[in-house]
């Protein structure tokens, strides 16, 4: 495992996601979210899932972040920001608690998952596409139906908004 690369990417991801929630301007928040997604794509590459990483960049940053940016610019950056009810310290508390729980669970399960350093033939694009199209073909079709339903729903919402 390449340790420096992991540390840098993990830092980018965590700092990006904190900035996404804490940046004063929503546009900066959306861009920080995009940076966090990029770091996440890097972590996926470290885990030998480079196709998922490309998909993550194309879908999350190419589609989701730009939709969010568009919405933020439409709604106006000044609107909708309100005072927080909890203290900012609670961020630290939440992160610490989650990390402790996560570390504990990981250490407990580390014996059950010893892990292997080389992924070999079971992580490449051929076996991924075989699994995706043969073993999970039905689910893929269902997913495309769900996506079509979502597109129609979003279009209906946009049309209804035009009438009022």
């Amino acid at each position: 495992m390449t340790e420096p690369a992991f540390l840098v990417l993990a830092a980018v991801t965590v700092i990006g996601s904190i900035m996404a929630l804490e940046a004063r301007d929503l546009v900066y928040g959306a861009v920080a979210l995009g940076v966090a997604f990029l770091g996440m794509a890097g972590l996926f590459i470290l885990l030998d899932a480079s196709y998922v990483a490309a998909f993550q960049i194309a879908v999350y940053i190419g589609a989701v972040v730009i939709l969010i940016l568009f919405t933020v610019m439409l709604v106006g950056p000044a609107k909708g920001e309100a005072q927080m009810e909890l203290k900012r310290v609670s961020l630290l508390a939440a992160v610490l608690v989650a990390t402790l729980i996560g570390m504990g669970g990981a250490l407990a399960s580390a014996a059950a998952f010893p892990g292997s350093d080389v992924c070999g033939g079971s992580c490449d694009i051929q076996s991924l596409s075989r699994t995706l199209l043969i073993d999970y073909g039905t689910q893929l079709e269902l997913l495309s139906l769900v996506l079509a339903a979502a597109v129609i729903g979003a279009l209906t919402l946009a049309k209804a908004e035009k009438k009022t």
Partner: protein
Amino acid sequence: MEALTSFFGVSAILLGIGIYGLATKRSAIRILFAVELIYNAANLNIIAFARLRNPPIVTGQVIVLFSIALAAMEAAVGLAIIIVAFRLNNEIDLRKLTRLKG
């Protein structure tokens, strides 16, 4: 294995940040950010477990591909709802959008 622990730790931290955002933020868009972060935490978890399993398995990547597609869909519909709510109420603070309250 140490690597598994560290990936798991990043995932747990992201989950914590996401839950913090859900609990404290009032803007609908920030809450969408938090939901996306939680999605990402889950994706990283699934991929890490599938990769660091012995022997590694590719099904985790397939599930994450599905998850990414669903997250994009959720963002599209959610943002459409936010835009409509803004047009109707001129407000995206979730605690002031009380029109649907029964």
